[in-house]
């Protein structure tokens, strides 16, 4: 009976084109989690004492916590002792590499294959990339070009070494290690990620992006991204992620913290395409992410745009704390689930300042036997005069074995607030599909067209290069979902 399995594998491989593994020498520490492991990670990164303390406090707090169960997800028990918390694919057999020339060319090839060339002369114009594989940043492009404007864009580890004061000031200032179970875990064991600082009055001239890749087996990826936009600055930041197809599950627990000062604007876009597991629900990434931005400054603005197509389980609520007067928070999301994928995703908009406003547009698309939930909180504090929120959350069902759910929470403590919530659930319309068929367009392409039309409002918010990728991804993710 090996035949059908081979077929199924081939079919899913076709659909998930990032499922390859890279064969490089990777230094992986022993599985398991304890204070010695945390000390080991910290020493490998040559961290200062205060950061090790931060990690240990987080770890000790994590030990007191239990896995949260409120999400509409069936999460198999995770054995945290069966995971390795640090994998370094850049390490040569003689130790850490000193420059990019010493990095295994296989590694650079991997990013080429993923469409992310790391040689600056070949790179996409206008996009600077920090490429992270497993626990280590491989390369950050255009660093010196950006530095000329005073912009700091580097790996988190480098930021700790080169800009310790900035890191110390902002690390954990938006998402404390006490925030939740996975935030505590991340704070204890986080490895790499990106650091961005945009100085006062600077509009970042290129898109900044981080590309996350999990390669090594039985490891978790725990990255941390910190973005600080000082007064009157602007930056658009992109995040992409993929992982090889493996039969076992991989854990990914990240934190993104964003600080937005007076009149600054940050756009944060994600195309999340972690391996979703195969069509029978085997394998896939468990994606538990805490993303939050603090609109501290007056007239500041933060936009989250996400296209979520990957991961076996997604648990993610990019949020905005709107404490600056007239600050603006936005959340645009498309979440697609197929086969046995589960997603519980949404946002929190916390209005604290006066005249703050927020917009939430969420489009869920479910197929196969998947479960897709929107969970969103709109809170208006008692001093938040004239707060406004508009929420629209739509669900589209393909077939009748999938589930779509909406869990809105509205918590208002100021009578001047105006909060609107609209929600719809619809099934993909057979008349629309037939109309496409009659014009010569087959079933899968028709679904791709219709779904992209449905998600257009969100896709349009993405930067151009990402939008094109995202459109393709939406169609591919739903292949084999109908018929």
């Amino acid at each position, binding site marked *: 009976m090996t035949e059908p399995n081979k077929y199924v594998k081939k079919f899913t491989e076709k659909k998930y084109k990032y499922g390859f593994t890279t064969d490089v020498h990777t230094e992986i520490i022993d599985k398991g989690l304890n204070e010695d492991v945390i000390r080991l990670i910290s020493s490998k990164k040559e961290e200062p004492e205060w950061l090790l303390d931060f990690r240990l406090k987080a770890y000790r707090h994590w030990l007191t916590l239990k896995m949260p169960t409120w999400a509409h997800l069936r999460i198999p028990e995770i054995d945290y002792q069966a995971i390795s918390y640090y994998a370094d694919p850049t390490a040569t057999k003689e130790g850490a590499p000193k420059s990019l020339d010493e990095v295994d060319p296989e590694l650079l090839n991997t990013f080429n294959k993923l469409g992310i060339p790391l040689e600056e002369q070949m790179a996409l114009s206008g996009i600077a990339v920090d490429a992270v594989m497993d626990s280590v940043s491989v390369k950050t492009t255009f660093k010196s070009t950006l530095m000329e404007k005073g912009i700091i864009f580097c790996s988190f580890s480098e930021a700790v070494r080169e800009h310790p004061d900035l890191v110390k000031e902002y690390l954990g200032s938006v998402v404390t290690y006490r925030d939740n179970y996975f935030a505590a875990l991340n704070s204890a064991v986080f490895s790499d990620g990106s650091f961005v600082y945009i100085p006062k009055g600077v509009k970042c001239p290129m898109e900044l992006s981080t590309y996350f890749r999990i390669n090594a087996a039985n490891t978790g990826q725990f990255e941390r991204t910190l973005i600080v936009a000082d007064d009157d600055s602007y930056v658009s930041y992109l995040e992409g992620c993929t992982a090889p197809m493996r039969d076992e599950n991989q854990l990914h627990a990240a934190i993104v913290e964003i600080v937005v000062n007076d009149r600054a604007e940050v756009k944060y876009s994600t195309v999340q395409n972690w391996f979703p597991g195969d069509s029978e629900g085997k394998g896939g990434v468990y994606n538990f992410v805490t993303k939050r931005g603090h609109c501290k400054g007056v007239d500041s603005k933060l936009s989250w745009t996400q296209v979520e197509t990957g991961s076996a389980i997604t648990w993610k609520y990019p949020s905005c704390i709107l404490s600056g007067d007239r600050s603006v928070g936005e959340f645009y999301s498309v979440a697609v689930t197929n086969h046995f994928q589960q997603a519980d995703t949404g946002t929190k908009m916390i209005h604290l300042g006066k005249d703050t406003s927020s917009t939430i547009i969420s489009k869920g698309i479910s197929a196969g036997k998947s479960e897709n939930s929107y969970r969103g909180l709109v809170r208006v504090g008692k001093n938040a005069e004239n707060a406004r929120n508009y929420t629209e959350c739509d669900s589209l069902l393909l077939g009748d074995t999938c589930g779509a759910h909406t869990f809105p929470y509205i918590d208002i403590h100021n009578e001047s607030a105006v909060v609107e919530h609209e929600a719809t659930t619809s099934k993909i319309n057979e008349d629309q599909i037939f*109309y496409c*068929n009659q*014009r010569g367009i087959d079933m899968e392409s028709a679904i791709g*067209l219709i779904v992209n039309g449905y998600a257009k409002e969100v896709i349009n918010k993405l930067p151009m290069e990402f939008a094109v990728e995202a459109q393709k991804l939406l169609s591919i993710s739903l292949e084999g979902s109908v018929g």
Partner: protein
Amino acid sequence: MLEIKNLEASIDGKKILKGINLTINKGEIHAIMGPNGSGKSTLSSVLVGNPSFEVDKGEVSFMGKNLLEMEPEVRSREGIFLSFQYPVEIPGVSMVNFMRAAVNEHRKYRGEEPLTASEFLKLMREKRSLVEMDNKLTGRSVNEGFSGGEKKRNEIFQMAMLDPKLSILDETDSGLDIDALRVVADGVNKLRTSENSSIVITHYQRLLNYIKPDFVHVLYNGRIVKSAGPELALELEEKGYDWIKEIEE
């Protein structure tokens, strides 16, 4: 071109077509008329492979091939076009993207390269002027917010884009005022050649003042009960359908 033999079809177990025989040669326009519920729209749905209908019996060949074995999209690529009675709206999908997907699928089927963006836009412009369609409409999402007349004109525009061998116009005149009717009919007439054929399904004779059929068939109770030249349409206009029913009963 099209040969229908003893075709029987049903929906939800209810028999609608009870043995249709019809032959259409290239260059011909056939009008199919009949009272409501006689099976006119069922016939067009079955020809384009609408999955809601069940073919119980009979054969249909198109250009020598077994039509009933083909998927709906293949029938389209083989050259059958249906102008829908009720065109659906597809929000968020621009007419440009929709038509480009369709045209390129047709080209791929014929072993041709897809059109470049500029070739495609040129084709759009050309065909749009043929059916006097507003530039604004092709910039919008498929049929979204179109008036009844605009939707029908959009159907004829798509027909022009896909250049079918056989076009089926299902109640294209319903819901059109006289000016819109004239524009739509003009479009159909401009697209007419000695190589392609049409089936014009209509309840009223009115449309046939503008699109001149070679043959008129009367469908009643799932069968073609009378076939003749264009004069039959005028006779129906004058006498109504009751006398047909009497012949039947």
